């Protein structure tokens, strides 16, 4: 598996995008194309998952949902502790970064799906629901942590809280969740024969569009790579080692608590190990204006994202195989 696994089109397109950026090609994909592909992919993965779940019992999903929620709440705390106490980064920047790791990267998740499909590895469908569930709780934790930090530092300040309800509401109704959850519901509710007419678009095109999306994401990651130095050695290592730690944790929980196969465990690992670069950055920008956006954007988009796409996914799959076979 080792080397050929890198020869899936999706990974190659990602690499092509990074390469184009590194040689400073003038290649540009229209930002609206990237957003459109995101809409398509979230809807597609939702509909596909929903259609599969229609045949399953909703009860079976409960443990997966609880696990997702738990991850969303605990990862930020763990990450905060590591960044602030081990890394000696100031508290508000630590909170902002930590919050990103508690949420998820749909791009990484989709790459993992492409990886499993290319290797013909079967996987459970619940991780798609976990993807939707894990989007927001980490933002909530980030807000509470930031408030707690501020209260420790200063006398209680009124302005700080003022944005809280708005941000919270926004994070639980953000576009990605609507698309994913909407897709899941529609895939679940619509009778199979009514769904047929839309599957050529949402299923057959999926892998091709995912490739173009990953080309774009490779370019985005490549742009951020240049900011490496600003982040410093500790944070860059954090961006690589933290996903490995979290990925291992994910595999463990997926295998032992949820009873998932190697494929499903790989997907859970990717959810746990990936960091958000769509929903969390703007939320943190409003909630913690004191924090430096280039730190959290560089880490999530420039370090952890490419690490996961290029190395993390096969690694988590190896871990999952070891455990499920062992």
């Amino acid at each position: 598996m080792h080397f050929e696994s890198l020869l899936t089109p999706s990974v190659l397109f990602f690499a092509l995008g990074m390469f184009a950026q590194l040689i400073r090609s003038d290649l540009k994909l229209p930002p609206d194309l990237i957003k459109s592909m995101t809409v398509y992919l979230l809807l597609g993965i939702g509909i596909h998952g929903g259609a599969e779940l229609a045949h399953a019992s909703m009860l079976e999903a409960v443990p997966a949902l609880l696990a997702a929620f738990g991850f969303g709440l605990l990862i930020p705390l763990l990450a905060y502790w590591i960044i602030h106490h081990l890394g000696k980064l100031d508290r508000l920047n630590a909170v902002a970064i930590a919050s990103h790791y508690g949420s998820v990267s749909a791009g990484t998740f989709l790459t993992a799906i492409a990886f499993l499909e290319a290797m013909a590895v079967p996987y459970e469908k619940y991780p798609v629901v976990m993807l939707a569930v894990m989007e927001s709780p980490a933002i909530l934790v980030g807000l509470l942590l930031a408030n707690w930090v501020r209260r420790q530092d200063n006398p209680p300040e009124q302005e700080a809280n003022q944005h809280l309800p708005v941000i919270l509401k926004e994070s639980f109704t953000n576009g990605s969740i609507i698309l994913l959850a909407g897709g899941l519901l529609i895939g679940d509710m619509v009778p199979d024969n009514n769904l047929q007419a839309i599957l050529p678009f949402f299923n057959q095109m999926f892998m091709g569009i995912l490739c173009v999306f990953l080309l774009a994401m490779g370019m985005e990651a490549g742009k951020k790579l240049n900011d490496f130095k600003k982040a410093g050695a500790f944070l860059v290592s954090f961006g690589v080692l933290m996903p490995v730690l979290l990925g291992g944790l994910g595999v463990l929980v997926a295998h032992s608590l949820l009873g998932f196969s190697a494929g499903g465990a790989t997907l859970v690992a990717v959810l746990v190990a990936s960091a958000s670069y769509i929903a969390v950055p703007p939320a943190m920008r409003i909630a913690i204006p004191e924090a430096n956006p280039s730190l959290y954007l560089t880490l999530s988009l420039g370090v952890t994202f490419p690490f996961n796409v290029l190395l993390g996914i096969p690694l988590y799959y190896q871990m999952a195989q070891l455990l499920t076979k062992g």
Partner: protein
Amino acid sequence: MIGVKRIELVVEAIEKQEVISRLESINIRSFTLYQHVGGYGERGIPDAGAFGEKFENVTFVIACSENHLQTVIEALRPILKRYGGMCLVSDAKWILH
């Protein structure tokens, strides 16, 4: 032609709605708005890439009478304090319809 003050406010896009609310609260309901504005300032917010539209700037241009100016500025100042940005004021003549 009457003399007015031309206010040019550049702030991050995430504050667009708050600027509008604050203007409404002092009964300013006319403004011109430029979106997708780039820029680089003290705090050097990076280009956040394809998903970064919330990190872009927006520019408000507001023409108001001289004696409204102070009210408008006081309404906008808290935003500038919290998130930075630029606010320029200059003199202009308003061409009557």
